[in-house]
C-alpha cells in the first residue's frame, strides 16, 4: 500500500510512549468507542429480538420498551467501558489510536478505577455537557474530569519508533519522509 500522507517528524512521535495523550487522539478514540458500542448494542438487541421471536413466538422489540431499553443501554455502556479498561487499560478506540488509561502515577488501573472512570465519563458528558473534557488541553497532566474522579491519566502507548522504522522500510517510504507535516 502506498502511503501518501507524510508522517510527522520523528522528534514528534518517536519516544512519546508514556507521555500524556492529547485531545484529538482521545476524543476521536472516544468517538470510535461510541460508534463501536452503539453498533454492538444494536446488533445485540436485534439478536435478542430474533431469539425471543424464535423461542416464544412473540414479536418482541426492545426499543418499544423505553425504560428497559434505557437500562439495558446504560448497563451495556457501563460494561463496555469498565470491562475493557479493567482488562487492558484501553478500549477498542483507544487501541486504534494507541492510547491507554493508567493511574496518575503511571501504573495499570484497577477494576474499581475503571468503574469510577466510566461513571466519571457519564458525569463529564451529561452533567458538565462536555466542559469537563477541557482539562485535556488546560490541565497540567492533561486529565479530564473523569480522570480526576478516577485518579487516572491517559498516555500514548504505541511504539512510535517501530512505526517509524516500518515507515522508512516501506518501498516508497524514503521518498516521502522529508520532514513531514510539522505543525507550527
Amino acid at each position, binding site marked *: *500500500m502506498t*502511503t501518501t*500522507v507524510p*508522517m*510527522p517528524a*520523528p522528534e*514528534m*512521535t518517536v519516544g*512519546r*510512549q*508514556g*507521555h*500524556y*495523550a*492529547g*485531545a*484529538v*487522539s482521545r476524543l*476521536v478514540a472516544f468517538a470510535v468507542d461510541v460508534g463501536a458500542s452503539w453498533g454492538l448494542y444494536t446488533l445485540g438487541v436485534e439478536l435478542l429480538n430474533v431469539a425471543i421471536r424464535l423461542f416464544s413466538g412473540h414479536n418482541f422489540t426492545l426499543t418499544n420498551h423505553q425504560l428497559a431499553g434505557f437500562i439495558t443501554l446504560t448497563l451495556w455502556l457501563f460494561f463496555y467501558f469498565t470491562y475493557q479498561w479493567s482488562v487492558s487499560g484501553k478500549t477498542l478506540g483507544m487501541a*486504534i*489510536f*494507541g492510547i491507554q488509561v*493508567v*493511574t*496518575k*502515577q*503511571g*501504573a495499570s488501573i484497577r477494576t474499581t478505577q475503571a468503574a469510577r472512570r466510566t461513571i466519571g465519563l457519564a458525569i463529564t458528558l451529561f452533567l458538565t455537557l462536555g466542559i469537563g473534557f477541557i482539562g485535556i*488541553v*488546560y490541565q*497540567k*497532566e*492533561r486529565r479530564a474530569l473523569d480522570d480526576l474522579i478516577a485518579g487516572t*491519566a491517559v*498516555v*500514548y502507548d*504505541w511504539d*512510535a*519508533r*517501530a*512505526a*517509524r*522504522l*516500518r*515507515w*522508512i*522500510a*516501506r*518501498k516508497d517510504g*524514503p521518498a516521502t519522509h522529508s520532514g*513531514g*507535516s*510539522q*505543525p507550527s
Partner: protein
Amino acid sequence: MSGRRVSNPIGTRVEQLAQSLAERIVPLIVDSIDIDAILDKVDINKIVERVDIEAVVERVDIDKIVGDIDIEKIVERIDIQKIIERVDINAIVDEIDIDALVEHTELGSIIARSTTGVVTEILDVIRAQGVGLDDFIWRWGNRLIGRGRRIRRWPEGPPLLVAPKATTP
C-alpha cells in the same frame, strides 16, 4: 739459570700509578663527552636503511612463536565479564543511526515484510497524525491563554513512565 721469579718493585709501582691515573682520567673524559651531540649526528634512517628487515623477518619462525603461546591460558586470565561491564552498550547504541541503517540495508525490507500489513500502515499514519494534532491543539490552546512558556516545564507523563524534567532555576 734457575726459574726463580723475582718481583720488580718499579714495575709494580708503575702499574699502580697507571691504575690510579685511569680511575681519575676516564670519568673526566666520559663527563666531557656530549652524548646528545653525538646522537644528533647519527642518521638513524641511514642505519635502518642498511638493515635488511626482510632477511631478519625470514629468520623469525612465526609458527614456532605462535605455537609456544598458550592461548587458552591467556584467555582464561581475561575477565570477560569485567570487560563487558565496562562497555557502555547504551552509548554504542545511541551512536548507531537506526534510520540510516534501516534505509540502506536489507534490514528495512525484513522489518517491512515481517511487520507491515495494510492495517498496521493505516494505524501508523492515523496515530502519527493524531499525535501531531494533539501537540498542535495543546500548544496553541495554552498559547491563547498566555501559558505558552509555562507548559514547557510541565511533566510529559506520569512519574512511573517518564522521568521528570530537569527544573531550571
